[in-house]
């Protein structure tokens, strides 16, 4: 009996092992970093027209890489007449408007067969404004707005080559400063320049909630477009940033308190940004929208930390008003488009500012009697109620910008910061 039991047990163990082995092997063949990426997705991955015609399946390496710059004795479309660095089918980067990535991620003339998902901007996909952001509908247009602002790709390449020469070279593509084409996923598109082998924002410690918590702050997600009940980025009721990648840490790999980044678009160095600075001190790079605690309550009235003052500088709007968190820390993407943005009407602000912020489409000011405004004012009014102003009611962004420290409201209302404080 014992012998038969042992035989049966052995048989069962073998069967279970075989099934497990089959499952594991099957899983290994059908998943992995590249196969999990957007480009490597079997349903909607890369699919160049000329190589799809040859018979390469979606996601195939051969759609982007030409091992010999020749298939069947000739170069597949697009024909360049030579082999390109990294064996891509065209040169990695030539200019803002000519780029290997843009050969597919463009409108008319794309070499990709079709797009399962249109490359609308952040305000569309994560802001939820599908009504007002049907253009730009591709990456090329986002980086090359007719009237707007965008990340300057040459500036990016210049910076990352100098900053991380072991990773980025002359032949590198500036898009890869933020993305890894073999790893980036739809839900987790970014890869830090300092960690090329992992997507960012898909794991513990990589969410906005984590960033805020680590700096004695709180993240509050803005509303989705035309809603007061659901929030960015996914239209759910989750608002604490646990479902949003920590874009601050990501963006701060470049845009931080120490890096000097020259902008050829602006003709100057960019303002330095320190979202982690908690001290409200003149001369220190820091932001109220970052870890610097605000001076007064969400209702614009006095706050015990800043002393007393009957003045009402203006409340902040929902959802921030009712959430009433002590120290809001925003995500970069709450205000900025990552690729490029179209100017607001009457505006020429070159800062990639979103047109739909906190559920409000503010491409132009409301106008009308008693409401003279600028687009910048409308932008800020997405979250703020503007009651008083110690200076002239001019363009908001002249004073209110990263690393600004205007005098007026700092001298009396924020004594801990010394004579001066921060205006942003």
């Amino acid at each position: 009996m014992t012998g038969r039991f042992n035989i049966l047990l052995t048989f069962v163990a073998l069967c279970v092992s075989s099934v497990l082995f089959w499952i594991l092997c099957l899983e290994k063949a059908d998943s992995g970093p590249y196969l999990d990426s957007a480009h490597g997705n079997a349903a909607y991955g890369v699919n160049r027209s000329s190589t799809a015609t040859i018979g390469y399946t979606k996601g195939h390496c051969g759609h982007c890489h030409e091992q010999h710059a020749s298939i069947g004795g000739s170069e597949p479309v697009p024909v360049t007449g030579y082999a390109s660095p990294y064996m891509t089918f065209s040169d990695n980067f030539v200019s803002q408007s000519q780029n290997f990535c843009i050969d597919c991620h463009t409108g008319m003339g794309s070499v990709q067969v079709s797009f399962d998902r249109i490359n609308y901007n952040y305000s569309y996909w994560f802001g939820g404004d599908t009504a007002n952001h049907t253009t730009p509908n591709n990456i090329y247009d986002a980086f090359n707005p007719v009237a707007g602002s965008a990340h300057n790709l040459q500036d990016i390449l210049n910076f990352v080559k100098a900053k991380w020469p072991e990773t980025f070279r002359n032949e590198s593509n500036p898009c890869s400063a933020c993305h890894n084409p073999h790893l980036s996923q739809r839900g987790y598109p970014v890869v830090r320049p300092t960690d090329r082998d992992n997507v960012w924002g898909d794991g513990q410690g990589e969410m906005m909630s984590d960033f805020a918590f680590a700096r004695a702050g709180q993240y509050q997600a803005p509303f989705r477009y035309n809603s007061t009940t659901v929030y960015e980025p996914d239209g759910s009721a989750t608002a604490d940033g646990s479902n949003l990648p920590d874009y601050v840490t990501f963006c701060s790999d470049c845009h931080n308190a120490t890096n000097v980044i020259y902008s050829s678009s602006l003709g100057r160095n960019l303002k330095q940004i320190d979202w982690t600075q908690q001290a409200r001190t003149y001369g220190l790079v820091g932001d109220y929208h970052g870890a610097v605690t605000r001076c007064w309550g969400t209702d614009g009235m006095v706050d015990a930390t800043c002393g007393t003052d009957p003045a009402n500088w203006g409340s902040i709007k929902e959802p921030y008003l009712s959430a009433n968190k002590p120290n809001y820390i925003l995500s970069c993407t709450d205000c900025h488009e990552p690729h490029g943005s179209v100017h607001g009407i009457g505006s020429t602000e070159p800062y990639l500012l979103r047109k739909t912020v906190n559920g409000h489409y503010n491409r132009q000011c409301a106008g009308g009697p008693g409401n003279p405004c600028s687009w910048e004012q409308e932008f800020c009014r997405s979250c703020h109620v503007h009651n008083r102003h110690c200076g002239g009611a001019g363009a908001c962004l002249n004073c209110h910008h990263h690393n600004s420290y205007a005098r007026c409201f700092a001298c009396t209302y924020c004594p801990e910061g010394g004579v001066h404080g921060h205006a942003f």
Partner: protein
Amino acid sequence: MNNEKFITFIEFTGFIALKKSGKSKSSIYSLNAFCCLLYALCFLLFAMPSEAKVTGACSDCHTMHNSQRGQAMARDYSSTDAGLVEDASPNPALLISSCIGCHFDSGTTTIIANNTPVVLNAQDPGSSALAGGNFYYSSAGPGGAYDKGHNVKNISPQESSPMDAPPGFKAGVELPNGGTGPASWASQLTCAGTYGCHGNRGIADEVKSVFGAHHQNVDIDSSSDAYKVYNSYRFLYGIRGAEDIDWEKTASGIDHNGYQGDSLYGSTNTISYLCSECHGNYHANTNLGGSGSVGDSTPWLRHPADFAFNGVRGNNYAGSEYASYTTYNVIAPVAESSPTTSDSVVNSGSIVMCLSCHRAHASPYFKMLRWDYKAGSLGTALSGCMVCHTSKN
């Protein structure tokens, strides 16, 4: 060698010698044992290398008059008939058949009489195909397609332009052991000779280019100097390597050909150099396409061949995806600077080569690749790529 007769002869001579000396039978038996031992040693010393040489009766391969009982003895392969047909014209060197005819089987057998490797089967050889693959897949027969193999003369018709010349062809390249390749591609690919791969490519005639090699052939390893056709890897003149005893009819991580490679594309005795004698612009050797055509590791313009893993990512092999390829894989094999037929470890010194991705003759797959590059399943289509490019797994 007739071993039984030899033993009897030795015993006989020993017996005669001892009988005359008046020794006892026990002495005779001792002498017999000694002679057997001597015979065994001779066998070990001389028998093994001779396995590589052609064996069997001369008439297995040659015919004196191409006529016997009024019938032609020559047989040549007909792509039309997908088999051997009688040939009234005599062949050079009194051969019964051409290369194709001898290395052909009408069924699926891939090692036939006299230990002859088969490179063309009339039926799908499947897993029995040898290391170079099988021209079944590129033949004019029912299983064939141009894009699955080299289109060899008399196996399949010449392709039309631009595939009537080797992709990446570079004129007048330096050949191993001296000489230069053709100044232009003016002929369909042949098995050997100037427009072929095997034999001395400095000799135009196919048969003359391999003269004597079959009879002098030795089983070589990477120590062979490859100064002759017969002691070159697979009769590829000037190319070194270690020949698997059954041409990889059975192959595994510890049983395979040993391919010669160079860590920095400098040598002319590698298997990749052989390929690039015709596909010159795909190899970075200065005699061939050079770095201008192929690039270098910072960055490559075309996929490298004859480049060791230790040179990747700015000499950061340990931090590269290739460090995870550690066990020899017959799907995407590697070359070595001193290869053997049992190398099982892949490390920083292992070398990517043309045959890491392609078969030499033909394969069941697109562009003679070693795996199904056009599979509908993406994981299958990229399965070979991912052997080396492990971070894409």
